């Protein structure tokens, strides 16, 4: 009997098998971020991710024009992307969704650059300074955007901002951020070659040109002039003779391109994640509404040039027909048809509107492959000219550079000096760089915004408001920019 009982219990226990607590310890198949950077390949992969943030700056480019007197917001109606409309009319508030996107995307990119720099000492390899140089350039680029748009911003160097940090980090005065940018760009300029093995990577010239711009924005004229002239004299860049090909998709990364943000039509995109798109979203947004006809493709008719900027071009300026598309004239000459959107001016930003010939990978409006020429040699020449002139260093050299730009545009040379030269340079900057996102900040940094932009209030609109929700989500400790 007892045997039977034992047998019963034994059989029962056999059925009662289980697992140890380790059963629920499973490792992820994905790489753990704290265990990374063990080889050069890891650094290179993280670097690619840091570059990715450049593609979301399409928003900065669009808004830099819309906020200025160059373009109107446009779109389908007065409520199409309300955030754009408000910035156009200078009635934007801390509740602006697009400013929040800009802030969010730039910080996403900053953290990716800082991720590499946080672990820069972990592993050594021969190519390391090249990688670190590129990472530092990118960090400087993203912080430059943040400082331009928002002024004093939370600042992290060589480490990511981690979950929990947002409650103790403060707005850092922009002078401090500029100082770090200068340091980063000097390192990049010293450690990068003029030509990299892959098109699209940061080069020495790019670092120097950005450094010059950063100096110029701080009115540090002699430093700006010095580094920009270095690029002019020693860099492998020149002005493109045939301006009409400057912004075409078959002439990307050409001799005039000092730094170019790369886009492609190889991958699909959707409105759910605009910052994920590998295409230039601005190009679709700027495009001609409901267009059928040759050369161009449809878009959402945002960012439309004003008559005022069209009139700013001098007669005979070849750049006018490259920068501005007169849609009425074009349509009748080419039997094309188009729709009329909100705030229709009859003009489109021809440099960055959709063209035929790309793969139109879905969503076609979001996957245009037009690269953004972030820094062109013409811009370098004009910045050098401005620095030399406004810094009272050499009006002669300033004139040389200015006239180089003008003669490429088949315009006669000028011989102004002093403040007349300054104004000539300002005018030249406007017509050379219209549609490329620089106008608003050029006006602000030279003190001309209040007189040129309708609704601009001095002491308030030089910077944009920090998104209110961002202030709240960081513990409500930051002061808002004045006037908002």
């Amino acid at each position, binding site marked *: 009997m007892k045997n039977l009982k034992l047998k019963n219990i034994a059989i029962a226990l056999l059925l009662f098998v289980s697992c140890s607590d380790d059963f*629920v310890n499973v490792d992820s198949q994905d790489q753990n971020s704290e265990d990374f950077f063990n080889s050069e390949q890891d650094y290179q992969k993280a670097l690619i991710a840091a570059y990715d943030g450049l593609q979301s700056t399409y928003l900065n480019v669009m808004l830099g024009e819309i906020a200025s007197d160059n373009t109107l917001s446009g779109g389908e109606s007065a409520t199409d992307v309300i955030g754009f409309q408000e910035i156009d009319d200078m009635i934007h508030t801390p509740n602006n969704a697009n400013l929040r996107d800009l802030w969010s995307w730039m910080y996403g990119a900053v953290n990716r650059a800082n991720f590499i720099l946080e672990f820069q000492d972990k592993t050594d390899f021969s190519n390391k300074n090249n990688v670190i140089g590129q990472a530092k350039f990118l960090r400087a680029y993203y912080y430059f955007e943040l400082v331009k748009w928002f002024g004093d911003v939370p600042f992290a160097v060589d480490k990511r901002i981690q979950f929990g940090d947002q409650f103790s980090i403060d707005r850092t005065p922009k002078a401090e951020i500029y100082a770090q940018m200068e340091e980063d760009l000097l390192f990049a300029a010293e450690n990068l070659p003029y030509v990299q093995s892959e098109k699209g990577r940061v080069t020495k010239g790019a670092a120097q040109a950005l450094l010059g711009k950063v100096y110029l924005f701080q009115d540090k004229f002699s430093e700006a002039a010095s580094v920009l002239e270095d690029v002019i004299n020693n860099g492998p860049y020149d002005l493109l003779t045939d301006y009409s090909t400057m912004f075409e998709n078959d002439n990307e990364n050409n001799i005039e391109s000092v730094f170019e943000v790369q886009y492609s039509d190889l991958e699909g995109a959707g409105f759910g994640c605009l910052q994920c798109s590998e295409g230039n979203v601005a190009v679709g947004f700027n495009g001609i509404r409901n267009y059928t006809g040759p050369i161009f493709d449809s878009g959402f008719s945002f960012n439309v040039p004003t008559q005022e900027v069209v009139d700013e071009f001098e007669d005979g300026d070849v750049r006018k027909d490259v920068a501005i598309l007169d849609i009425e004239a074009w349509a009748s000459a080419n039997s094309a048809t188009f729709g009329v959107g909100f705030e229709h001016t009859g003009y489109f930003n021809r440099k960055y509107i959709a063209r035929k010939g790309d793969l139109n990978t879905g969503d076609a409006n979001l996957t245009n492959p037009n690269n953004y020429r972030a820094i062109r040699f013409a811009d370098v020449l004009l910045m050098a000219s401005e620095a030399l002139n406004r810094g009272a260093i050499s009006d002669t050299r300033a004139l040389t550079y200015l006239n180089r730009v003008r003669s490429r545009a088949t315009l006669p040379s000028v011989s102004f000096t002093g403040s007349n030269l300054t104004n000539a340079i300002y005018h030249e900057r406007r017509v050379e760089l219209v549609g490329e996102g620089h106008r608003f900040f050029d006006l602000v940094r030279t003190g001309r915004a209040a007189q040129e932009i309708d609704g601009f209030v001095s002491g308030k609109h030089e910077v944009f408001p920090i998104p209110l929700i961002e202030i709240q989500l960081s513990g409500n400790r930051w002061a808002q920019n004045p006037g908002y």
Partner: protein
Amino acid sequence: MRHTLFKILALFFVAYTSAQNIDISGIIQDESGIPIPGVNILVKNTTKGSVSDFDGNFTVTNLQVGSTLTFSFIGYITKELVVTNADYLTVTMQEDIAKLDEVVVIGYGSQTKKEVTGAVSIVSSKTIEALKPTRIEQALQGQVAGVNITTQSGSPGGATTISIRGVSTNGDSRPLILVDGNVIEDLSVLNPSDIENINILKDATAGIYGVRAANGVVLITTKTGRKEMPLTIEYNTYGGFQQTTREIPVLNATEYAILVNEAFAAGGSTPPFTDLSILGKGTDWQDKVFQNAPVFNHNIAFKGGGKKSSYSYSASFLTQDGIVGGSKSNFNRFTNNLSYNLDFLDHFKLTSGLTLMRTQKRNLSENALGSVLFNALNMAPTFPVRDENGQYTIAEGLGNEVINPLAQTDDTFNRSKVMRLSGNAGLSYNFLDHFTAQANIQFNYSEVRSKVFSPIVNYGSGKVFNKDRSEVFEGLDYFRDYTFDAFIKYENKINDIHNINVLLGTSVFKTTGEFTGAKGFDIKDNKLINASIAEANDVENINRALGRNPTFDSRLLSYFARAQYDYKGKYLISGVIRRDGSTKFGPANKFGYFPSGSIGWVASDESFLENSAMIDFLKLRASYGVLGNDRIPDFRFVSLLNGEGTYIFNDQLSFGSAAGAVANPEIRWEKQKTLDIGLDMRFLKNKIDVTVDYFKKRTEDLLVIPQVSAILGIGAPGSGPPVVNAGVVENEGFEFAIGYSGAINDNLKFSVKYNLTAIDNEVLSVSSDGGFLPGGSFGVGQDPPSRMEAGFPIGYFRGFKTNGIYQNQAQVDASATINDRVQAGDLIFEDVNNDGIIDEEDKVQIGSPIPEATMGINLSLDYKNFDFSAYAFASVGNEIVRNYERNQDLTNKSIYFLDRWTGQGTSNSSPRVTTGANSNNLFSDFYVEDGSFVRLQNVQLGYTFSKDAFKNSKISKLRLYASASNILTLTKYRGYDPTASSGAPIGGGIDQGFYPNPQTFLLGANLKF
């Protein structure tokens, strides 16, 4: 003489040995003397037993004198007899009207209805068969108090959302669903005719399932054979057609032209329609898009059992076309179910089952901006379906999303095929009289194959659906999971007074899977027949671009114990404790403990109520417990490089490594503390059955993905906020169910059942920073309209309150407006905080998708050979956002626009029409409608041929019936279907052209032989 002596000696010998063991035979019959086959006879405290045969006869061998035999059968009161001798037994069983012995499945075991201390509801197979659902969830709607079903889509195979006692989390609020112990996520794979019953555990007694039980547990038992049952074959079939319940009234061509002209003039442009007389009625796009669609179902089942075994096999086939899109939106399902149970070696019991199921589903774009119905509503009636060249008309000037819906249907090619194999096997072993050891294993394996072909199409310039390059996508996903349970039970009734039940067990669950897919381009001749990855160009693997691992591995490990005690079946108490470990949480908080307890008092057994004439049964019960929830994405406690980091170098895509969502190593179980107090009562000779429950569920440490500061980098591609435990949601409510069954005379029997659930949902707190979670979408480029915020119901709608229409300019000048473009004829937005400006601060709660009360009523009548049943359910107090209007210059509009403002005093409800800039499209209560409704869900009339008709054939039952579903809905809601909802806790209840539930008319037959 020697013979006789020998015989006497033999008798003595036999008598001596038989004094230990005898054989008993007998017959079992009901009160009218009719034999009952299939009755379970059990020798108490053993597994030894027998089953009565077709004529009610039974035999039990090798029985000890003095042992007790129990006789049990569904619908009859269990009887016990002590065996004193070998006499032939005649056992009379009484019908159990009270159904107090009805078995309730409660988790790793069962109790009788009388003993249950928790809030459990049962839906029987009779109800399921009467409702003829194509999906199981339709059988639960309106049947059970506390259970609310919303359909995500009326399309064939469309998904539904089950919520038990309210929405208690912003994440996954689906209940745990087990079919014969097997975890099921998608109920569309189950064939309703295979279901024996559905038991729903609504309160803390579901706690035996620990994690995942916080949203309630649905236990589904499938039909099996029974022992000593001759082979029966059942064949069921039905067929019929479906049509839409309604079309939304929109303007016809002439009305449309008048309005468009008016709008253009108001906006300062030239009116486009010069001659209105030639327009007539134009095209009724909805009429063209909706069609009558067939549905057919065949089901055959074989069931039987021998002395020690039982088996069943069933096969069924369902095909259903869609009322939008016909065969482009159809669903086919083919299922096979096999089960086999065996008792062997005296103490062992084996159960096993296998299911093979295949489904195929095609669907069209639905409930989204630019879906087929959305386009049918917004398409201009002045356009014909085809133009003069016979091509589909281009939707000129109607914005970038609206296209010809018939062209859209023709150009949609997608198909999803699921093959699923499920199995279970269980072994139970009885020993030492009172112990049972049991081990079960269940597994599921599914393959989901999807294919989408997008041909080159051009719907006009600027349309977002245009495709320049044809594309094919083929996906193959694998899902595998298994569950292993093992437990030991001790059951004993001491002195016939103390009933003890102790259970100790363990459960292990593992689910893994893999998502693969490829996209290719340039399909030859732009034809579906050539659309395959093998023949496409530029094939890309979808996992490469995403930068993350396409597999998942998620597990649960649990230990549990339960003790139940009752004193004379009158005082009941039960307690459960469970320890769960989940792979979703980090080392810090991997394990959680979930205790719960319940008590009950069968007051009607007390002396003061025992002989009551009024009250036949009264039980009071209460339960309280802590349940858990771990339904969040995997690995959120560790920082992984599964984000997207792609750039272009040398004109090629370069894939980098980027951080994914921000990690939070501290995440832990969501805890739900739930209290239930209930009452079950029967009176008037068990004719009236009442159940009342009060419940309060409080979910703490709510797992949310809140908004966090963007300086953490969450705006980068593939990144996102962390999961945090930060929020408290409370659901408090009350359930009431009453049923009356009676007979007017021998020929006419009827029953009426009514149930009511009232729930109050409130978010008590949401992650402090920012204070709310946004969700849902409205219009184009507008802020999310729904929120989860402290002090409001979850997913409430937030926007401007309107107060009529401005009748003249003076009125506009005298009030606060949102901008200076507001003029007479526009909506008046209320300046809620009276600060002179209309802005964010004036947005308030303007509705909630959660109903205040839901109720169901079921009526059934049996008259001679006829049976009639009707089911209706209602929802009160839920609101729906009307978001199917595109509001472009040339899109069509609903007929309420005929009441628009055209001058002073002409309207105070609909604003003016204009193509100019205006703020009337901003989200306000103008777009929120009352979604309360009453729906007559099913009416069925059947006729069962009398047994005499088939005396000489093998047929034992033939029933013919006609049924109609969803035939009448009473509601003020202007959209297609007030049950429309995506089911999302935040963002649900927003109608973007919801595919309506069809009206179905069926004829069917049940045949048994």
